[in-house]
């Protein structure tokens, strides 16, 4: 069990994303940071189900297999993240049209 595995990297990605949301001033960068958080979470989830030397439980004979549930759950999360990002970018376009800026400090 090394420390460099999907779970730790996923958590680190989440933290990087949070740091980005807090420090970036550009709206688009903030939305991308939220995406990074969700990517980290997806990595985290998929790694939870990982079993060493396990195979995907599809067809055929297998004794050791990875947990397929987190992977299916993450398909949903991917879709949710995609729609949130799309909506956020659409709103950003509208905000830019009305305020002529993407800087959070100027939007106040």
């Amino acid at each position, binding site marked *: 069990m090394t420390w460099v595995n999907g779970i730790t990297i996923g958590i680190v990605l989440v933290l990087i*994303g949070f740091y980005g949301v807090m420090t970036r001033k550009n709206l688009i960068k903030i939305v991308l940071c939220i995406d990074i*958080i969700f990517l980290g*979470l997806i990595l985290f*989830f998929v790694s939870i189900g990982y079993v060493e030397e396990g195979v995907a439980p599809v067809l055929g004979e297998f004794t050791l297999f990875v947990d397929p549930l987190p992977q299916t759950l993450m398909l949903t*999360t991917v879709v*949710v993240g995609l729609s949130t990002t799309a909506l956020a970018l659409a709103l950003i376009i509208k905000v830019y049209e009305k305020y002529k800026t993407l800087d959070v400090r100027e939007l106040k």
Partner: protein
Amino acid sequence: MSGILILLVAVPLMTAFLLSVTALPQKVPHTTLMKLRNVLSVSGMGVLCVILAVCAPAALSGHVLTYTVGGWSPFLGVSVLVCFLALFYSIPHMGYMRRMGKYDAFYFLMVAGIVGVFLTRDIFNMYVFFEILSISVFVLITAGEKKESYKASLKYLILASLSSALFLFAVGIIYASCGSLNMDYAAEGMKSMVEENPELMYVVFTLLLVSLGVKTSIVPLHFWLPDAHSIAPTPISAILSGIILKVSIYAMVRLFLLCGWQFYSEISPIIAYTGAATVAVGTLLALVQKDIKRMLAYSSISQIGIIVTGIGIGTDLALQGALFHVVNHALMKSGLFLCAGIIAGQSRTREISKLQMGAPGVAVSFVVLSLGIIGVPPLNGFVSKFIICYGAVQAQYSGLAFIILAASVLSCGYYFRVIQAFFKKKKRRKKTPMYRVSRFMSFPVYILAVLCVILGLFPLIGLQIADLALKMVGG
């Protein structure tokens, strides 16, 4: 019998789909399409109510209906009722926005999300329904197409995405340590987790508290709420304050009680004190607002604080009071927002000092509803606040009871300011305002006001609802 529960989610989803299809035909005149949409939305809601009514007898007699993942909660009935009323309000109100056909479609997606969160018994499904709910709310907030609405919606979107990320993180940890996402199995897993690995349990609790804290806007995380709730179009403000905050409160009660009473009693003082802080901040900020909808939004924060305090005290009595207050606040605050919409429309301003009485029926309902929120005896707000305070004193939290009572007294200050504005001398205007209050807009308000009086006069109905909900959460 239990298969019918699936329909509760499926019907609004289907209605949303059909409504979005009505936006497609190019050559059909708008008026026909509008009529079609009205018929579709009202019948969709009607079918939903009928299904609920079919389920109701079994649920009210104490059975928890389950169908592999579902349960029936009395809150659902209240939410669907309020959504129905707000839909009526929006029939004449939202003409300009509904021409695009997106308003109704997203409205029903939102209803599907609300119903789903109440019904689900799976933590990950709860997350998915929350996302359906929030994404449609982001769109609905911008329905007024005002300049600020885009900013408010974006602010809400960013915070809500962060909060759902935290929620998902907590779900991941729960799955990793319990091996199941079904609430019944997870509850057992979490109980053993409390004994074996309390540090991890604290992490899960903190993640859930912060994430649901953003959604319910408890105090350090409340700053998005006044913008989103006051800028959204009136029926959406009513639903945001009345129902959607309650959905998150429901999730909070549901998930916190999963940890078991022993762990809950350890952490509950934190919830109680943040609740009290929320009451104080919400009340004080509401006092200085000049815009009536903003004032109502801050008042929502303080009422949410009262509910969270009740949850945090954690005795049976206080929990019962808190759940009763959830129902009461859902009815009162959505009614108040709808009244405020009509009154502000009639006096053509949202500034409190310039408001005029307008239609007397609406003004009377406003007075009744605001007295209910303040907690004047024959109305429902009194009963639930009294139970929470009584529970607080019984559980040795007298300070919290004092804060709730002081907040109630102060809330007279900001509600009476509005009512006072109704009675000041009218300056004769040369042009009489031509704002026609449609019957569709005033009837929901009357119904909500009458319901408040009924729940106040016969509090046992409400207490039974709260009891059922508690039983439902417990098992």
